[in-house]
């Protein structure tokens, strides 16, 4: 790896990272306007055209507010908390593929931060570190609401990690690889030239499990027990100031983007356009880099669609009760995950034997 490679890789990494951070302001306005749309009210529409500058106003307001560290907290853990959530949420995007590759100075660079061959394991491992931030923050706040929120959050996240892992395991079984890039490559083409060759048609149950677990992992509404503002004030971030709250929120939106990216990569063909293969695209457009652009746009559109689904579900489905939440994970999702694994293994066996 020479200097040129290093510079291109660094610029690519920074661009992808900044792109992921941009998810936060975009989602701020999309979520508020989306909520307004669903609840039949105008929503924030005063700042700029159609209220598009609202996120900027929100961020400035958060920054200018007072930083009050309450007296009863354990200061080190309290300050560290939000950053321990944001940090893993930023790191997980490394394994998400956004496209095949682009060519620069006669060299090919992949459209992914790093081609990690254990991509799925990397995302599951780093992604679940975020729970330490929530637990530290909630406990160090020394507030009953925070403590209950943190306890709920940790038991919820660890419980839903098992169905998530089992669903991902079935996908690994089906594709025979840990690498998300190879999984996406394996989804090119069509099934009997009718349906796109996407994972969802092979792993429908796995997708359902993954989808439900993704909501619980990101603390989104049907499962937002850790926050549940009606019962716990604000859950684990009750004692935090506006900018710390903003940090938790950034992490939440970035986790949502990662989960959407995972779903798109495993079950919805990643950067592939349905029914149009990359070779055909190359024939039409003639340039490798144009194809790469189309691929990135496709992947981003798919991810954006799932982000919208997250917002849509949030304002449609009411919150679960805590024991219902635990029952759903342990009594329904985990057995279903095991069944899905067995079915996948059997299908592969009979397919191989035939």
């Amino acid at each position, binding site marked *: 790896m020479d200097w040129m490679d290093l510079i291109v890789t660094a610029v690519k990494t*920074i661009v992808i990272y900044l792109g992921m951070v941009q998810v936060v302001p975009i989602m701020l306005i999309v979520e508020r306007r989306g909520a307004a749309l669903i609840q039949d009210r105008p929503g924030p529409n005063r700042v700029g055209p159609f209220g598009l500058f609202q996120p900027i106003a929100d961020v400035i307001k958060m920054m200018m507010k*007072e930083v009050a560290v309450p007296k009863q907290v354990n200061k080190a853990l309290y300050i560290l908390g939000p950053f321990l959530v944001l940090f893993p949420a930023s790191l997980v995007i490394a394994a998400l593929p956004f496209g095949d590759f682009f060519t620069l100075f006669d060299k090919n660079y992949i459209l992914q*931060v790093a081609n990690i061959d254990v991509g799925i394991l990397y995302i599951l491992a780093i992604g679940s570190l975020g729970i330490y931030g929530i637990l530290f923050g909630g406990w160090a706040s020394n507030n*009953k609401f925070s403590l209950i929120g943190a306890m709920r959050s940790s038991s919820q996240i660890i419980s839903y990690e098992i169905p998530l892992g089992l669903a991902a395991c079935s996908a*690994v079984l089906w594709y025979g690889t840990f690498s998300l890039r190879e999984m996406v490559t394996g989804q090119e083409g069509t099934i009997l030239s009718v349906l796109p060759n996407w994972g969802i048609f092979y792993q429908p149950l796995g997708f359902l499990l993954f989808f439900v677990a993704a909501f619980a992992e990101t603390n989104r509404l049907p499962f937002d027990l850790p926050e549940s503002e009606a019962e716990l004030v604000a859950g684990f971030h009750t004692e935090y100031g506006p900018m710390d709250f903003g940090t938790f929120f950034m992490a939440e939106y970035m986790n949502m983007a990662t989960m959407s990216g995972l779903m798109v990569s495993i079950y919805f063909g990643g950067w592939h356009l349905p029914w149009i293969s990359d070779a055909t695209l190359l024939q039409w457009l003639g340039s490798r880099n144009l194809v790469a652009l189309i691929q990135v746009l496709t992947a981003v559109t798919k991810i954006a669609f799932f982000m919208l689904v997250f917002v849509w579900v949030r304002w449609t489905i009411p919150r679960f009760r805590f024991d219902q939440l635990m029952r759903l994970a342990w009594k329904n999702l985990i057995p279903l995950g095991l069944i899905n694994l067995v079915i996948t293994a059997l299908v592969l*066996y009979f397919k191989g034997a035939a």
Partner: protein
Amino acid sequence: MDAFLPVGILFICALLLCVGLFTVKRLLGPRNPVASKLSVYECGVKPEGNARAPFKTGFYLIAVLFLLFDVEAAFFFPWALVYKESLAQGPGLLIAMLVYMGLLVLGLVYIFRKDCLKLN
């Protein structure tokens, strides 16, 4: 090792973002501490007792069960990776996994029978 170099770059980016947010927060926000502002927030009512109290053992039990099941589920991953290639050598790996999964399901049934997940 080359594959993980960009992760290092990302690591630095993420660190910079965290440090940046922290500094911005410290520099821009005003400071005006008042005793009531710095006390525990319990909806404006006078704070009662301490949050460093014992919590329900149910949460602890879930953590223990998670450890068991997640470690066991982690054993599925290497199996899933080599399964497709091993198909040519007969159903040995499939049967081994079904036996292992049977043990896992037995454990799950035991948890349900003992009502370990009762939190309310």
